[in-house]
């Protein structure tokens, strides 16, 4: 028997005795979590009905998000401030080249890396700096020398202040994480309220043919490993800038 067969056989044998569903044992026992405010009923998860399976079902437990774009943009902006993400709302994307040049000057970029997206392509070329394009392959040493990675994204998630990227829509896996500065260019239409909506969007965009890599980026790289004190730029980008137009 192969390792696979052995393990699956042991699992089947082990599962012959049923285990109770958690949270439903102990009659008369008070799960008294009085110290946790954040909501009321203990048994609100719909005993028996798996309301949680429809991912929209999770939204009822998670932090609230307004249903209109404006409140979502505001929430994303607030979350960004907490996360130290530099979030810039543009009245429209024609402002982008000028804002990017301004950022390039202030950050003293010398080499830029990007991918050939509809938004990133023209914006990056407007910078007039040596530019590495990751589409079609690249040498890691080249990417390592770049000061910034400019990418598009799949979505901006208001609830958590996250940027959703995939290897297909953001120029690969490393472009958004190796250079010390990650710049995201997004459109207003790409704002989604929460994580369930983000997953629904991935389904719409890819069906069952997902990219090999997808990631929720929530703020610049950080660590609290030393005395639990926050330090930015542990390994990934120290700066995350998001332009939304």
């Amino acid at each position: 028997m192969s390792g696979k067969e052995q393990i699956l056989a042991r699992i089947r044998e082990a599962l012959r005795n049923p285990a109770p569903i958690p949270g439903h044992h102990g009659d008369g026992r008070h799960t008294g979590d009085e110290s946790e405010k954040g909501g009321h009923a203990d048994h609100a998860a719909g005993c028996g009905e798996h309301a949680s399976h429809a991912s929209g079902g999770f939204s009822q437990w998670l932090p609230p998000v307004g249903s209109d774009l404006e409140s979502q943009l505001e929430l994303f902006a607030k979350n960004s401030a907490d996360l130290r993400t530099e979030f810039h709302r543009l009245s429209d994307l024609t402002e982008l080249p000028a804002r990017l040049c301004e950022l390039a000057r202030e950050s003293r970029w010398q080499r830029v890396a990007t991918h050939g997206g509809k938004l990133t392509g023209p914006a990056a070329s407007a910078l007039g700096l040596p530019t590495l394009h990751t589409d079609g392959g690249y040498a890691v040493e080249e990417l390592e020398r770049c000061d910034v990675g400019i990418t598009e994204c799949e979505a901006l998630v208001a609830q958590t202040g996250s940027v959703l990227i995939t290897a297909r829509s953001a120029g690969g896996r490393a472009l958004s994480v190796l250079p010390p500065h990650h710049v995201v260019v997004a459109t207003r239409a790409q704002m989604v309220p929460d994580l369930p909506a983000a997953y629904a969007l991935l389904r719409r965009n890819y069906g069952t043919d997902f990219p090999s890599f997808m990631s929720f980026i929530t703020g610049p790289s950080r660590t609290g490993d030393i005395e639990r004190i926050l330090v930015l730029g542990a390994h990934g980008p120290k700066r995350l800038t998001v332009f939304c137009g």
Partner: protein
Amino acid sequence: MKITLFIPCFVNTCFPKAGIGMVEVFERLGHTVDYREEIVCCGQPAFNSGYWDEARPVAARALKQLEDAEVVVSASGSCGAMLKVFYPQLFEGRPEESAARSLAARCFEFSDFLVNQLRVTDVGARFPAKVTFHDGCHGLRELGVKSQPRQLLEKVAGLELVEMKEAESCCGFGGTFAAKFPMISTAMGEVKCASAVETGADFIVSNDSSCLMQIQGLLDRQGRALRTLHLAEVLASR
């Protein structure tokens, strides 16, 4: 109402005032108090050490004695939890199981009984002092006791309640744990004592005498003036 008291073995011998306080409060409120001397122990020490076979005869005796009690109110959260939460587990699949479940439904911790069953928060008590409350773990997490003692203390004339930072932290008693792992037990107790001392309170009050025994033991060794008191003693004061 006829209220049957469950008095744990150590309350009986070392902290009778807690039980006496409960009698006085219930009688002041016009109820009849009942007590069965035949019950010595709830069986928790053996149970917590994993010797469930040895705990069963002790527990079965308590179960039998309390069969006909209208309601059972315990002086300690840990014994209360034993009766209400763990007896059904201890007797699962055995003939005593239904008796255990019936008892669980009739069993209450002292402050919870006053507030949620008798619907009383003012028992006419007077205790002019600065007091902080320690939440015994069994009461807090097995029996859902948090606001009830505070609602009662709020109505005590002259009493000032201050919360300690570590109110919900375990005092470190844990039954046989205190003797089996004394160094850990002591460290946990020290954290509790320091937090209580920080409040500047004159008394530490709790609904569990086993916790108070641990805390007082440490305070005495430290030579501190801070004294421990069971909730029932405070509520019985005039």
